[in-house]
């Protein structure tokens, strides 16, 4: 009885997870007639697959948009914001894990909350002031500008994850290094950092996911030069592009990160991820 329930649950959940993805993939291969005359599901049986959607987004004579440059932009911006957040965030997290900071009545817990609270701000609120700020700094529509803005949303995640992670690493490790004559900075770089790869990997993955998938800041703070991939697709959506082209471009832009799911799973199964959130 329990086994049947479990199997049913797992089947239903897996179908639910797969359904929108499969729908996006099939739609991307549909000709116009298979979309506008009502829902069709099974290729060859219900509709004849066509490459019309994919031809529109990939380079070639029928191309209506360029998704290659936006892909590069997305890579640069995501990598930049992830790197900055990881470096500054993990240093701060290590400090918060090992030392006691005091300023008036504020304790470490309050400082951690301050970091995390930066995520509460809805992007809608920040869009206009960030726009003015970047304009003043001549950083509008530049990689650096978008990277800095994204960092404010990603560093909180790094601090949140890495404080717990460093707390789980025994203090004896750094104390040992300091007894041998290292100062705390050397101790961090020589003994703690090499042990932190799993934690940094997880934090980095979250940064990549949230950085890559950001649309709002990229939409408001960049125009033509630093168009990111999701924004390029949203722009297509804005011009009432048919669903088969939208589906093809959506599939195109989620492929890089779906690859990341495999990487995460490898870490999980090797047990490396385990320590990262404890």
């Amino acid at each position, binding site marked *: 009885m329990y086994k049947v329930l479990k199997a049913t649950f797992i089947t239903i959940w897996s179908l639910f997870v797969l359904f929108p993805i499969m729908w996006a993939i099939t739609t991307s291969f549909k000709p116009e007639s298979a979309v506008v005359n009502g829902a069709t599901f099974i290729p060859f049986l219900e509709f004849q697959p066509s490459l019309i959607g994919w031809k529109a987004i990939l380079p070639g004579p029928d191309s209506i948009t360029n998704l290659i440059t936006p892909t590069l932009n997305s890579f640069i911006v995501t990598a930049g914001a992830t790197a900055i957040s990881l470096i500054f965030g993990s240093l701060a997290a290590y400090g918060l894990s090992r030392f006691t900071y005091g300023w008036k009545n504020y304790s470490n817990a309050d400082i951690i909350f301050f970091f*995390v609270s930066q995520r509460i701000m809805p992007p809608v609120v920040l869009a206009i002031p960030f726009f003015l700020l970047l304009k003043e700094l001549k950083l509008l529509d530049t990689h650096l500008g978008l990277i800095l803005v994204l960092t404010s949303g990603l560093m909180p995640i790094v601090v949140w994850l890495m404080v717990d992670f460093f707390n789980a690493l025994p203090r004896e490790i750094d104390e040992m290094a300091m007894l041998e004559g290292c100062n705390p900075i050397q101790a961090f770089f020589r003994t703690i950092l090499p042990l932190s790869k799993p934690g940094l990997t997880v934090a980095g993955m979250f940064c990549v996911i949230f950085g890559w998938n950001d649309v709002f800041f990229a939409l408001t703070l960049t125009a033509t030069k630093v168009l990111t991939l999701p924004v390029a697709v949203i722009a297509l959506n804005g011009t009432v592009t048919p669903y088969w082209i939208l589906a093809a471009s959506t599939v195109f832009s989620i492929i890089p990160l779906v690859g990341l799911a495999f990487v995460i799973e490898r870490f999980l199964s090797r*047990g490396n991820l385990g320590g990262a959130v404890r």
Partner: protein
Amino acid sequence: MKKGYPRFFLLPGLILLIAIIIFPLLFTIRVTFSSWNVSQTGLNFIGGENWAEMARDTRYWGSMLRLFYLSFLTVAIQYALGFAIALFAWKGIAARRFFRVLWLIPMMTTPSLMAIIWRSIFTEDIGALNGILSRVGLNPVNWLTESGPANIAITIVEVWQWTPFMFLILLAGLLSLPKEPFMAAAIDGASAWKTFARVTFPMMAPISIGAIMIRLIDASKIFDSVFTMTRGGPGNATETPAAYIFQRSLQDFQIAYGSTLALMYLILAILTLTIIGKVFARLSKPRGI
């Protein structure tokens, strides 16, 4: 220990974050006391007019109330389902590694793009869902133009997108649990349910709290699904504060008023999340392991 070292670690990150955030924050506070829109050059001072208008703005408070149940409901569902599938993927099913990858995928997809796909699923005349319903002989549902179904549609999308986040954090937590308590429970002959209620669940409390807090923070910003699928409609039936603030400040260009709504939203969000955090801390302490 010398005083400089602790600062070396904390200050660069803290200063960078404050440097990025301080101007937008101060600017937002200042703008709420003006009637600024993009066409004006300077900032005037009109006192608390925006704040008074906000107090009377039933559409705003309605969206706030909606957000309250929408975020708590979706995060509760995400937690329950995420925990369930994390337990399955932890041990006890075949092809674990396959399912782990599969169940992670929604989190990897861009929410605002998947919202377009979801819109094509829920679209009433040519959408996938009504296509399925009509094939099995059921009546089509007005998923996007009727208040009840539209809210269900938003909930479904949020659960699909973010349950994997809970799943990942909770699975990682489960994988890092020490083995001894489980062996002790097995020696005592505890049933599967008892082991879960007395051992697994309490030991997962700290991780659960962290995951729920982060999800609540992100859920309080629900925007992509609402904006792409229903534009807050029908009427205002699915409008969240983020969508309403977007409407007022970036589409009607009433930036001063939009900022007021946003600042109030920020204050309420921080208050609510602080209280929830305190309650969680108290609940989990005495029972800790």
